[in-house]
Every structure is written in C-alpha cells, then in structure tokens.
C-alpha cells in the first residue's frame, strides 16, 4: 500500500478519484472546498481516498473489497497526522449514519446527528468544552439569536431589541467564520457596539458550532437545495444541544425574502427545534418600504455610496464603514 497526495487538477488523478468517490455514492460539488486530497494505492489501483478542507474531513471513499478495517484506519490516521503537521488538532467529519461507528471506533465523538447525516469530532477541543466556556445566566425566558451580521444593520438591531424585550436574557451567537467582507473580529465589535445599551444581551462567539464551514458549508459555498437542507437540519441539532445546557427555550430569526439558502435554514429550524426550543420569525424591517439587508449595505459600499449605507445601519456601524472605506473597497476589489 502506498499513500500519496492526489493532484485533482491533473485529469489522470481526477478521473480515478471521481470514479471511486461517485461509486461510494458521494456527490462531488465543488473542488474549491478541498484543500488537499490523499489517495491509497494497491499496485496501480486507487483503493481509498480522503480529503480535507480546513479542519473538516471530506470525500472519504474506499473500494468495497477493502472496506471495514485496516485501510479505513490508515486513511483517517494519515489525514489526522497530515493536519497535525499544520497545527490543526481539532478535526471534524460529516458522514452518513452508517459510518458513524467506524469513526467512533477511532476515537471520534458525536456532535449531532439527523436521520441522514452525522457530525463527529476528535482532538484537543470539543463541543462540551465550547459550551463550558460560555457565560451562564439564570432566568425563565432565555432566548438566542445567531447572526453573521456582515455588517450589523438596523435590521439586526431590531431583531435583538425585540428578543431583549421578550426575554430575561438573550444569547447572541456571532458566526465565527472569516468568509465575509467584514472579519469576525469586526463583526463581533460592531454587534457589541450596536447592542451595548441592551444589558440583558450576551454577545458570544458561535465557535465552530454555529453556522460554520463545519455545520453549514452551503452558507458559504453555493450548494444544491437538498444538500443545504440536510446541512441545516444538522446545524439545528447542534444548536439544540447547546440550547439544552444553556436553558435556551426560544430562538429568534428574521424572515428571509432574498436568500433561498437562508430560507431553507429557517424552514429546517422550524422543523427541528420544537418542542424544546420554539422559533419566532420576525418580519424584516424596512426603511421607506425598502427592506434592510446586509447585502444592500455591501453593495452600497461597493458603489462608494455612503448616503445609502447610512440608511440601513446604526451610527456605530456607519462610523466604522466611513473610517475604513478604502480597506473595505480594497477587499471587495480583491474578491473577498
């Protein structure tokens, strides 16, 4: 057996890889979500392959004759060691329920599962540690909002205000993935500044557990609707696990007139969260019948139109955008 890196840009390797991966019933979506691919050869035949993107293992496939043991262990082990050389020790895998046990056998632990998919993790960090690190509050009505806020708008502000009015405490989970025009740190700061007057709102990081490349890659990488559906249902299960420990009984979301992916997400939440957590969908706010959205703010920035930006965002966000306009324009230009 020989392990090597497969260069998928080379058609020779791509063809072998594609045939093995598709034989195992995996849907190849987009090569952009692969950092590196390993292959195991027996003589000249590709008998196993596995890839990763950041700290997520993907596209694991093994020839039927070699399944159930040594080859699988070698494949997963080599991927984990490869990530360790890049100082990545906390590793996730998103797989079908029938393979759950094989991963558990290698020390992986379940983060969440649905009838069609399982999310497992291993290494030096876990969801239990993430939850243990969150501030704990006491109250009857504890609610939550998860937001990317790219950037924080008056629409976000309205959602947080409504939740704060209706609850003893509100956990505001900020999506922790640097895949947006505004960096995680900037988004977090603008949310904190824009909600600093609301004393019962706790702004916390969503870690890798709330809408991240791990739980919900379609949010960042365009995907088919069925794939978005099973990812969002899994993301909702992860949320439920966190909610249980924090005694969160309600989640607020904004209605979604524009993005089909976010609309699928809201539908999945409505299906998965009850009865433990109820879902409250609030209508999106508008200024002069023009619905506020972060997308509109970003296009206004792109058009260098500060007057338009000012319509949609609180003063704190506006100040930031005004000061950092050249940086933001450069990021848009560079394709971020």
């Amino acid at each position, binding site marked *: 057996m020989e392990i090597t890196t497969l260069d998928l840009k080379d058609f020779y390797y791509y063809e072998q890889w594609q045939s093995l991966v598709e034989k195992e019933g995996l849907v190849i979506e987009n090569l952009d979500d692969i950092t590196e691919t390993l292959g195991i050869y027996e003589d000249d035949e590709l008998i196993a392959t596995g890839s990763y993107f950041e700290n997520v293992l993907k596209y694991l496939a093994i020839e039927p004759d070699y399944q159930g043991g*040594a080859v699988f*262990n*070698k494949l*997963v*082990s*080599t991927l*984990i*060691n490869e990530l*360790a050389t890049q*100082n990545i*020790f906390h590793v996730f895998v998103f797989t079908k329920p029938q393979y759950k046990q094989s991963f558990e056998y*290698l*020390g992986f632990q379940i983060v969440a599962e649905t009838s069609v998919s399982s999310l497992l993790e*291993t*290494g*030096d960090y876990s969801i239990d540690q993430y939850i243990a690190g969150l501030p704990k509050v006491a109250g009857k009505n504890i609610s939550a909002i998860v937001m990317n806020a790219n950037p924080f708008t008056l629409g976000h502000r309205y959602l947080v205000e409504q939740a704060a009015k209706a609850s003893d405490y509100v956990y505001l989970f900020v999506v922790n993935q640097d895949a947006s025009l505004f960096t995680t740190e900037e988004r977090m700061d603008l949310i904190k500044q824009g909600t600093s007057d609301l004393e019962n709102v706790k702004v916390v990081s969503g870690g890798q557990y709330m809408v991240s490349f791990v739980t919900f890659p379609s949010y960042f990488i365009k995907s088919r609707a069925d794939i978005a559906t099973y990812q969002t249902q899994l993301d909702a299960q992860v949320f439920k696990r966190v909610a249980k420990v924090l005694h969160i009984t309600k989640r607020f979301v904004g209605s979604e007139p524009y993005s089909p992916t976010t609309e699928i997400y809201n539908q999945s939440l409505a299906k998965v969260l009850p009865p433990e957590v109820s879902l409250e969908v609030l209508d999106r706010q508008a200024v002069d019948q023009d619905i506020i959205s972060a997308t509109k703010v970003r296009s206004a920035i792109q058009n260098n139109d500060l007057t338009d930006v000012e319509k949609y965002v609180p003063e704190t966000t506006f100040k930031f955008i005004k000061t950092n306009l050249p940086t933001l324009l450069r990021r848009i230009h560079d394709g971020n």
Partner: protein
Amino acid sequence: MEIKHTALAGTLESSDIQFTLSKGTGVEINLDSQVEKQFGNQIRKVITDLLADYGIENVNVRAVDKGALDCTIKARLIAAIQRATDTQNQPNWEVLG
C-alpha cells in the same frame, strides 16, 4: 515541564496508539481502547508514570489505543511530550535509559 502547545504522535492503525497532548489543569487522561477492561489501568499507569518522569503536572491526554504494547505506548507518548514541550532536540536520557 510545561506543555507549550498541542501535539500529536502515533497512528490509529492496529497495534498502535495515538496521543494528543494539550494544555490542561492537572493530569487528565481520556483513554479510548477496545481492551479497556483488561488493560485500561495498565495503560493509564504507563502514561502517568512517564508523565511523572518528565515532571509534567498539567496536561490533557487524549489516547486512542488500537492494542499497543507498553513499549509502543511509551515511544508514542515520549514523541508527543517532546513535540508538545518543544524539546525534540533535547532527548531526556534519564527517562529514555
């Protein structure tokens, strides 16, 4: 000795053991082994003794065992310790002897 950062050694293949050492408070051992019932305590003893030899008092040890012998457990743990303490180039001869 202090754990400076997370480090990994070993594999998940048969007869091997994979260690992940990370910063912690006190010595915490999280062992996953199919022979836990028969050899769990023995494996833990090998780990705690070796950590004591190195004077490591604060560490999280994650061990996924695939039926490793004591000598393998020691070898993998030594590699993980030296990586986690940035002492790969300074072997601890007293422990290794």
